[in-house]
């Protein structure tokens, strides 16, 4: 699995990120690091603790990282979640978006893992 295929699996645009970072090495380095980023954990913990302000920040951070890495699909769902949580309250919509974000996150992570394995292999 190439990095480009990994990006395709994550529903994201590889050309865009390469255009900005100009080096496959850099993209690869950061994408692999994304799997270890704690923001998603923070999001889940905050949600469990019903600390929606913190959850908003976490979603917002995920959105920021995704923008930097051009992870458009997860970026879009986390962005929508951040907007839903911006007011600091909970809603049906937010619940649906949390689900969506989680799914996208898992999809992204599994793609990265697969890519990692391909590298290792």
């Amino acid at each position, binding site marked *: 699995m190439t990095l480009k295929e990994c990006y395709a699996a994550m*529903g994201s645009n590889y050309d865009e990120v390469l255009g*900005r*970072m*100009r080096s496959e090495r*850099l993209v690869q*380095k*950061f994408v692999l*690091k*994304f799997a270890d*980023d704690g*923001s998603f954990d923070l999001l889940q913990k905050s949600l469990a603790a019903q600390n929606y302000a*913190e959850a*908003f*920040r976490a979603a*917002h*951070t995920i*959105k*920021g*990282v995704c*923008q*930097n*890495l*051009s992870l458009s699909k997860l970026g879009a769902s986390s*962005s929508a979640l*951040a907007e839903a949580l911006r007011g600091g309250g909970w809603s049906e919509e937010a619940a649906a978006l949390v689900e969506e974000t989680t799914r996208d996150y898992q999809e992204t992570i599994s793609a990265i893992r697969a890519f990692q394995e391909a590298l290792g292999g």
Partner: protein
Amino acid sequence: MNSQKKSTTRFLTVSLLLVAVFCVCIFSFLAFFMNQKSAETISSVGTIYMTSMSEKVSQHFETTIDLRLIQVESLVETISPKHSALRSTLEYNAQARGFEGLAFCSDDGDFDVLYGDPLTTADPDPFLKSLRAGEKKVAVGLDKNGEKFVLLGVPARYPMQDGGDSIALVASLTADYVAETLSLYSDNSLVYSHIIRNDGSFVIRSGDAYRDNYFERLQSLFDSVPETGDQYVHELQEAMRTGEDYSTLLQIGEERRHLYSTKLAYSEWYLVTVLPYGELDEAVNDLGKTWILMVYLGCAVVLLALLLIFAQYFKLLLGQMQELAEAKKAAEHANKAKSEFLSNMSHDIRTPMNAIVGMTAIATANINDVQQVQNCLKKITLSSRHLLGLINDVLDMSKIESGKLTLNMDQISLREVMDSIVSIVQPQVRAKHQRFDVFIHDISTENVCCDSVRLNQVLINFLGNAIKFTPDGGAIQVSLYEEDSPKGVDFIRVHLTVKDNGIGMTKEFQEKIFDSFSREDSTRVRKTEGTGLGMAITKYIVDAMDGTIDVESELGKGTEFHVTLDLERAQIQEEDMILPEWNLLVTDDDQQLCESTVASLKSIGVRADWALDAETAIKMIEKRHQHGDDYHIILLDWKLPGMDGITAAKEIRRRFGTDTPILLISAYDWSEIETDAKAAGITGFISKPLFKSTLFYGLKPFIGAPQATDEPPPEEITSHFDGKKILLAEDNDLNWEIAEELLSELGLDLEWAENGQICVEKFEASPLGYYDAILMDLRMPVMSGYEATRAIRASERADASLPIIAMTADAFSEDIKKCLDCGMNAHVAKPIDVREISRLLDKYINQI
């Protein structure tokens, strides 16, 4: 409306009629009253006249009779009875005095005639009685023919022929003589007089009287009503008996006569003066007629004036009613427009809502079919965006209607505005296969003060409409040019035009295009979506900017909107934009663009030639090539008449090699043609419009590497940040790593602050001027980027004003405004764009 008009008309008519009737009554009464008055006046004038007239006549009579009696007396006194020739002397003297006859009168009334006709006394008793008493007396005498004479008797004792003595000397005069002396026969006088005795018989008769007795005459005048005649005769006789004057008005049928009677001296006679009112009455009647005529004429004039006033008032009233009706109509129309708008809006909102709901349902049903779900989500996104647009319009409109829309004046770059516009509309233009062109010329100032968000809104609205109402394959053109502003040297007049060759507008619609809630109501635009608020909002924004909008449109031919704004020139110094002394070739089919580009290039130190088509351009390149003096860079328009830009590039590469960079200039999206262009050997791309700064930044990468055929490596543009210290506040370590990795390539020395608090602490702990700038994430735990910026700005350090640039995943205009309000210098959206950050750092670090 109609019933109101009817009732008003009725009221006016009735009141006009009433006033008219009232007027006629008043004037008639006046006429009648005045006629009555004038008749009375004439009567009293008649009485006065008659009285004085009679007095005069009677005095005259008295004087005449007196004079005559004195003559007779003087005869008696001068000629004594013992005179020798008594009779002849008397006769002689009496004749000399003009008497008709002379006689002695005996005690029993017999006359001893000296000369003249023998006469008899008509009524001898009173005559003789007076003479016997020794008084002078006048009486009537008759000759044998019945002719009347006036007898003047003066007591005198003369011997008579029969031997006795006379009691008086009696001289006679003709009645005519007396009448003439008294002017009783005067023809040219209205008045005529009779002298009568107390039995009614005439002494002197004048006028048309033919009877012998005046009483009979009087009675004969009243043949039809004898009682009236009797009464007048009775009254006259009574007055004569008591010796009083008598005055009365005789009404004989239509005719009126004034009668006046007075007693005459020395006699039993009465002077009766009569004034027929005939002519006077005629005059008075004429006067009356004239008066009535004048009165009715006056009345008519007054009525006419009234009629005019009423008519005018009625007209005025009608006008007012008309206006009222129109105002009512306008209000109803506005109301209708609002309700139509509401129903349209409901429809417009329901359509995308339905799509969202439906697509969500489909996506839920096919949750495992990724492609289907993606498709649904794409449609949902589109619908949401559309919905958001509608709601934004409505919000803007309600802000405008409540007067809350304000402008956020800031220093903006027209280049950035145009660039963003072009990139926003490109996808839509591409989708409809429209020809899109941007022209700019005569740009002397790129940086101006304006509300960029609102200016964008205005342009996007015009462009959005142009795209919407121009069919597939049509052409849309945006122009921007500047000229001196009449507001002074600190201002610049900016002209923006958006022109299309679409469906155009009707004249009627052009007039109300800027009204709220209006959308051209015809089937050809029904299918086009929109709230109908865009133009009203646009108009309001331009008005708020003190600008004007002109519209030119023709149905089926297209529309042109022309916005003129007087904007203040920005105070910030434009960077020194100087490029090496290159030779450039600009190729574009628009001569104005060529000339303006060449002028812009000249101002940044580049010499340039221009060509209007690719064939000419190639000839020019060839000429230079032969002299060994190649162009350094070639700019080619994509769409050219004849050979297009890409073909031309291929040709140039084929003939002159790959050394010279060839840049494509176009208003179209680069990504669209990139593959073809790259394959044709085109080095890069500069997006229209070609501002001075666009050209500068587009050409700058070729400094030092003018021969490079590939895109210049990023180091080329950023190498001048060596050793600059940047403090980067970012809570996420991955983002930090990415930033560090990317930015350190610029030669920047980055330090990490994990949150706002640490950022402030690090700044406070650093030596003065240690950091060149701070890049600040906004959402951080412990302390946000906003608070950190405020804290830094509030510190008393000399370098508290160092550049702080916000980096955030949000790009709402509110966020940007909040950043600037907190004291940050600029804002850059994530993802981290090295070029953008490099440009901003360049701008702010070099400024200090």
